[in-house]
């Protein structure tokens, strides 16, 4: 049974080669639609790689955000590009060989250098995971990744939420939303979305709750919620006109606002900025995560639709 011990290595090799192959195909494909589909496949395989590296959280995020949401956004962008697309002359797009050669050499030198350094770091310096484990019982949640994201380094996460909101404000500043899903949806899609949307909302709620002690959390839950929103929109459901004003904007800012409010309010109780008082960490984190999930879902769906209402 000696060959069984070689199995993991073989799987890793196959995954790595598939990854490289997909990346190369996606980059060289002249057909943009094909390239996007290959990119989504790349995201899925990358998710498997993260699973092999025992990083289930990153795998979830990679599949939900890297492959799912990004793929949907790329396809939506492609749909807008299509009418304007003209026949591009491939020869004209190629840079002259005199420019490509030095760039290629530079990249090879860079990659070699990086490879060398990574080789030297084969055994990395002891990171912070011991420290995280040692102080996990003060963090309010039993799962280290959630503890880092919402407590130890909550300041970063607060600003990451602001980045998402900022991306949406940037998109809204540029254009109004196209009339999407005005036409009668296909009956199959409508039936499917009636079935799937409640299920997806349930899954999102589960992911938030489970984040306290297992892989999950606001970003993954928010992306599922966003997908539910996209599905509903595609099947013809729309926000009523009165809800697209400040009520929608309130949902969009809720995550950052609640996080910032709690982070500042604790100062009034003699705590440092973003330092939850003893015993209050768990409810505070859960409140922030719920608000963040709602906002992330709404922002992702709004990004997919593209343009202000």
């Amino acid at each position, binding site marked *: 049974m000696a060959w069984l011990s070689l199995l993991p290595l073989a799987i890793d090799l196959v995954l790595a080669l598939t990854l490289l192959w997909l990346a190369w195909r996606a980059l060289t494909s002249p057909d943009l639609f094909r390239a996007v589909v290959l990119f989504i496949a790349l995201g899925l395989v990358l998710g498997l790689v993260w699973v092999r590296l025992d990083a289930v959280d990153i795998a979830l995020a990679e599949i939900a955000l890297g492959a799912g949401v990004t793929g949907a956004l790329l396809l939506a962008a492609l749909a807008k590009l299509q009418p304007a697309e003209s026949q591009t002359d491939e020869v004209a797009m190629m840079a002259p060989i005199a420019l490509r050669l030095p760039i290629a050499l530079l990249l090879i030198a860079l990659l070699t*250098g*990086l490879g*060398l*350094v990574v080789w*030297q*770091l084969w055994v*990395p*310096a*002891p*990171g*912070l995971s011991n*420290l*995280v484990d040692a*102080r996990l019982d003060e963090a309010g949640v039993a799962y280290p990744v959630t503890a880092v994201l919402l*407590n*130890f*380094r*909550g*300041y*970063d996460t607060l*600003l*990451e939420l*602001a*980045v998402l*909101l*900022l*991306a949406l*404000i*940037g998109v*809204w*500043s*540029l254009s109004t939303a196209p009339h999407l899903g005005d036409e009668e949806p296909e009956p199959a899609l409508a039936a499917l979305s009636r079935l799937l949307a409640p299920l997806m909302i349930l899954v999102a709620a589960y992911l938030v709750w489970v984040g306290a002690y297992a892989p999950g959390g606001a970003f993954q839950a928010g992306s599922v919620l966003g997908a539910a929103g996209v599905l509903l929109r595609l099947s013809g459901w729309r926000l009523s006109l009165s809800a697209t004003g*400040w009520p929608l*904007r*309130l949902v*969009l*800012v809720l995550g*950052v*606002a609640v996080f*910032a409010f709690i*982070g*500042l309010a604790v*100062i009034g109780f003699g*705590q*440092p*900025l*973003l*330092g*939850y008082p003893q015993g209050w960490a768990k409810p505070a984190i859960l409140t922030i995560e719920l608000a963040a999930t709602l906002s992330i879902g709404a922002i992702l769906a709004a990004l997919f639709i593209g343009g202000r209402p």
Partner: protein
Amino acid sequence: MPMLLSGADWATALVFVPLLAALACFLVPRAAGWLGLLAALLILLATLGLVQGLLADGPLRVAVGGWGAPLGIDLWADGLSAALLLMTSLVGLGVSVYAPGYFAAHPEQRRWFWPLWLLLWTALNGLYLSADLFNLYVMLEVLGLSAAALTALSGSATALNAAMRYLLVSLLGSAAYLLGVALLYHGYGTVDIALLGERIEAGAVATTALLVMSTGLLLKTALLPFHFWLPPAHGSAPAPVSALLSALVIKASFYLLLRLWLDLFSGLGGLLSALLPELLGLLGAAAVLWGSVQALRQRRLKLLIAYSTVAQIGYLFLAFPLAGAQVNALAWRAVLYLALAHGLAKAAMFLSAGSLLQFAGHDRIADLDRAVQRLPLTLTAFVLGGISIMGLPPSGGFVGKWLLLESAFTQGRWGLAIVVLLGGVLAAGYVFKVVGYAFTPTEIAQEGEAVPLTMQWSALLLAFGAILLGFSAPWLWPLLEVGAPFMQPVAEIGMAALKEIGAIPAAVVTGSGMLEAEILAGSEVGTGRETWIGAAP
């Protein structure tokens, strides 16, 4: 009187006031103008509070969430961060006063300007206050995204193209920076700058991290040959945005580069840390000359000012070969003066250009048509800003260039000194080119739109600020020493040079010796910081 608010509170306010104001502006667009102005005033107040605290108690370290590095994120403020925060809040207030008048004709642009600009401000303040490499990456992301969105605000095809290019460059720069952070974390197990400074060793990991992080930040700072994205972006954005991009956004990535260089990499030694400053100095010299010549050749006012920024960025890098060997920390102070003066002066110039654009409906330099008589305040602001850019006394730009020259002369670096002087002459050329056309009537007299006084005065006051900076040494100098960001107390030569140009009253230096005493106090605080870090796990 006991202080009601501590330094930590002021630092918190500097990040959270603009953040919450941005959310409020997004929620209630109708009140955005007043909210933005109120936020700008509060931020200036918080900055002054922080500066007061730094002068009284020395450098500030705040453990966010109470965890402390390396587990949590720390904020850190010393003289270097305080000086840049001060410049940011002055320019920010000026632009916030200017913007309502400029955007009056474009309500849709005004609606998005406020949340984007306040998020940009959040990122700037957060960046100057952060002591954590990964947190700095997050700040860079907020900064790059909001800057690109602001560039695209006018919605014209040129602006969209420029913004897209800017976004891609900015993302590439961030990715390179992040790669360096990942390498450092894997190599040394922390992302806190102070702890890393203790643990880092010369070797392949540090060298590669230094190279990729510097390249990423140079892309964002637009040092020649990475300047290609700057003129279209700064030239096609709305004038208040151009002012923000040129005066503030560029400085943020430069500050980060300087911080990394001072705290992490300069002590490493080895061939690379000897060669890199020389290379940066060479690129800086090329940028000064090439940018100035390009500025002279421009026909549109905003592009001229944008190319002038390319040249002025070059000056900031002339200090690396002068100070890289740590012989003479005077060059760092020179560079800080230049950065502050450029921030105030360039903001004034871009705001003036915006007023002229609003007045005439175009910014062709040849058709300025007696603008001097018709918009005297605006032209005065432009000229005063230009004086600081040229480096004429008594402006802040003059002090910076003088210190740079002093530093170059004492080290016998004649080449660099010639570049400094030549850049000043070329700058005089392009400033006077604009002034000349502003005095000349065109063949067909042109009608002008009225320009609100808030727009004219905000530009003028910023320009006055750039001039007054030349007299600010007596209180700015001690502030710069808080936390000893430049590693060593002021060299004797620095005091002599300042006395020579009259930036410090001679009595202060020679008479009571008060300034020296303050500086010594600053450096003692610096030693305190080191013991503090040593005590950390």
